[in-house]
């Protein structure tokens, strides 16, 4: 039990400090898990990062992997819940104030004013992903086909994504 409490406390702390999300987390977790706590070896840590990239979940799902290493399935559950408690709580807080914030004229002007920046951020995600993962003609063909299907038909994106995964699996993409 003592182990689980320790896992809970450490992941709660991590959840409280990863502002900005995503890749801030890698050096932070590395320091805590490998250097300070010795819960993982460096190889295990890197493999854990790779594993967590395989899932649809955010990188913070690395907490599940580490928790599993330290405390089995209960450890994985406790670690996962605790790392996500702070951001979920903060988000619920913002969401609950949202209507009231929007009612204030200045806040509303700012909120609407930043929408183009959000568009830029979304577009940039496509750019950054494309730069690292599109290389062959095959990739670009899949991109074009995916765009056509998603833009012009109402096929569920889940079907399209799973279909593309199946294509990759069956044709042994490497």
């Amino acid at each position, binding site marked *: 039990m003592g182990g689980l409490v320790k896992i809970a406390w450490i992941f709660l702390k991590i959840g409280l400090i990863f502002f900005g999300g*995503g890749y801030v987390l890698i050096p932070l977790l590395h320091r805590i898990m490998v250097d300070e706590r010795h819960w993982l070896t460096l190889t295990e840590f890197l493999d854990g990062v790779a594993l967590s990239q395989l*899932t649809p*979940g955010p990188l*913070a799902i690395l907490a599940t992997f580490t928790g599993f290493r330290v405390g089995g399935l209960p450890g994985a559950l406790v670690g996962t819940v605790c790392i996500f408690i702070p951001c979920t709580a903060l988000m619920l807080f913002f969401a609950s104030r949202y209507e009231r914030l929007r009612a204030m004229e200045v806040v509303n002007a700012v909120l609407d004013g*930043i929408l183009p920046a959000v568009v830029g951020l979304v*577009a940039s995600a496509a750019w950054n992903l494309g730069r690292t993962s599109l290389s062959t003609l095959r990739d670009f063909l899949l991109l074009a*086909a995916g765009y056509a299907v998603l833009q012009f038909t109402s096929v569920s994106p889940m079907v399209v994504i799973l279909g593309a*995964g199946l294509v990759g699996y069956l*044709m042994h993409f490497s």
Partner: protein
Amino acid sequence: MSLPLPGGAVAVISLAMDRKPQVPLREIFRVFFMIGATGFGGGMAIVSLVERTCVREKKWVTLDEFMHGIAFGQILGPFSLNACTFVGYALRGIAGGIVAAVGFIAPSFVLISLLSWLYFRFHELPQLQSALKGTNPVVIALIVVAASGMARAKVRSPAGVVMAAAAFAAASFFDVGALTILAAAACCSLGRAWYGREHA
């Protein structure tokens, strides 16, 4: 909470408040579980999926509300999860937010637990890589579709185009964090709001 009102009065009140029919928590869980199970690519891929499902198909939230949710979501923790929480809250309050968050994380949790078990047992990564190579380009297509749809709807003025282009460049070429970009954009629009008021 159970005031003894006749059925008619309840109907009038709910009409007056213009409430949409409540979305069952089960439905919220189901939708976000599906998103969490198929949203390979993470991050903006999830956001694009949520936009497509909850804004365009189900019309649970408006595009404006959703984009504000993305902006808030950049502050603490993963914004993919935060976007789900935000939509869940808009539908059913705190319970809705938690159900959406749990539904979204659950598939990844199960998958990672399984993979961790295999990994620590056999010290090998299962060969999922080929499948993911296939999904990568399609995930990018999904994000492009979302971005172009948002741009058509929300980038109308020349100033908006400049801001979108600047945000894109800062994030793509100069490695500026999303939170910094949004803070800068907020300062810009705050300045313009003040200026507009002074010179109206």
